[in-house]
């Protein structure tokens, strides 16, 4: 346990001192504010543009915005946040291979599975904190300006995207155990996601795939039921566990 907490503390210190935590805070708080701000500004922008639009024959009638507009923004921006998050942390293991920093610690007796475990826990904690911070900020502004009651199954739909993030983090770990470079890991993670996404185009299996969780934002507008996503969540959970197990097994044989 001491090895695990010591290595996790090192991960935390690294993220603070190399500015990663600052980037994440700015990113997620920024998006959290941006979501309602865009919703709030949309009518004004359209009014400002209405004159030039009417010259082209388009007429702008009164635009109605509410919490749903802001939540729609949330689901537009969340993937962007996730991509930046993955880019920032994709080198979490490969940077250590590159510099050879793990050798000292492994030769001091650090169990290899604890490296994977610490990295996984810290990354998941950062994603949890960042993503839900963004959610809370958006939720707060929405409650102030409008009424969150307009959106259905808010927490559950947000949870679905959160789970997708955890799945991608577990993919980073698994890919890092196979590849030696950061670009290899990004290609592996990106490629895996693309394959899963394309497989999702087949109606028969779509609802069993992690990529299906992207559709959970439809729940907020009253389309579908949480139960529709049960299969995808179950498959994603099992897949996360498999990724971590695979990462540990492969990393045990990895040349450092």
């Amino acid at each position, binding site marked *: 346990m*001491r*090895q695990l*907490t*010591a*290595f996790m*503390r*090192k991960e935390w*210190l*690294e993220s603070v*001192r*190399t500015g990663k935590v600052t980037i994440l805070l700015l990113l997620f708080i920024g998006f959290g504010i941006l979501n309602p701000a865009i919703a709030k500004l949309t009518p004004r922008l359209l009014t400002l543009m209405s004159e030039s639009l009417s010259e082209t024959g388009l007429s702008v009638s009164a635009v109605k915005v509410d919490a749903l507009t802001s939540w729609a923004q949330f689901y537009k921006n969340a993937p962007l946040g996730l991509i930046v998050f993955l880019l920032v942390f994709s080198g979490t293991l490969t940077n250590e291979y590159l*510099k*050879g*920093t793990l*050798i*000292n*610690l*492994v*030769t*001091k*007796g*650090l*169990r*290899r599975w604890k490296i994977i475990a610490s990295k996984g826990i810290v990354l998941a904690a950062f994603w949890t904190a960042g993503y839900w911070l963004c959610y809370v900020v958006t939720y707060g502004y929405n409650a102030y300006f409008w009424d969150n009651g307009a959106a259905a199954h808010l927490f559950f739909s947000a949870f679905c995207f959160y789970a997708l993030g955890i799945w991608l983090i577990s993919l980073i770990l698994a890919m890092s155990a196979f590849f030696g470079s950061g670009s290899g890991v990004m290609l592996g993670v990106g490629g895996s996601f693309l394959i899963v996404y394309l497989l999702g185009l087949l109606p028969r299996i779509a609802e069993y795939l992690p990529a299906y969780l992207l559709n959970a934002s439809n729940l907020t507008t009253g389309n579908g039921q949480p139960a529709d996503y049960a299969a995808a969540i179950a498959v994603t959970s099992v897949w996360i566990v498999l990724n971590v197990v695979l990462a540990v097994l492969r990393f*045990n*044989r990895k*040349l*450092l």
Partner: protein
Amino acid sequence: MNMLTLSHVCKSFGGRPVVDDLSFSVKPHTIFGFIGQNGAGKTTTMKMILGLLAADRGNIEVNGEQVAFGRTRTNRHIGYLSDVPEFYGFMTPGEYLELCGKIARMAPSQARSKSAELLKLVGLDGADTRIQGFSRGMKQRLGMAQALLNDPPLLICDEPTSSLDPLGRKEILELMLLAKNRTTVVFSTHILSDVERICDEAAFLHQGRIIRGGTLEEIRAARREDGPELEVEFYSAADAERFKARFSAARMFSLSGVRLEAQDEEAVPGILEMLARERLPVRRFERLEPTLEDLFAEMVRG
């Protein structure tokens, strides 16, 4: 019991043997020099001892325990210093040693006092800036502190001096000598003068095999079948020429210096007698000990 034993260890990369049926053992509290050219298989051997690389065949034991690839159990007996040790640049030396102490499962109070003691020993006790600004020599000294932190019975250093300037080299060699009181040291190098300075025993590795090993005395003795080599330096070139003319195998090594190989031990007094008889003033008369460099060059040439 030996601190380290390798028996019939083999390792090849892509069909090319790098370590070929390697066997040797290291006794406790010795400094063992592992000598070879670049690519002789030194680093590969050390990585196998540390469980960082799998051996194709053979057996490695550290302190009586068998080493297994990918596991780190036997590493609790080992302190390791690589040729260019890498640390987390965002940490201070104190923080790094604290991390190492926790990983080596030391009691916090013990880790603290030990790390303070070692930082003092390696001359980094005043340096509480981040490691990213450290020079190579400073990193190497921190590496030494890190390697000795948990009082390992075996210290393995992979070419610890090869990337350092002369002053840095001297410091690391002195640290290794100091470490000998507490631990057994195995260090690889291609700098033979380092071996002569601090090693008790050595093994010459060539193309993955040990071509000669033992105490430094034994290694040198293997060459003593030949007559002793002498170097005689005179005050003038003319005297040197006169002296040289007497010996067919003699050759000049400088303007006024002659090098020659005596037939055997008995021939040496005869040469001194001749110098006295001819009244040749000698600036220096020296019997050359074979350097490890000479021995190594001979052995490698086969």
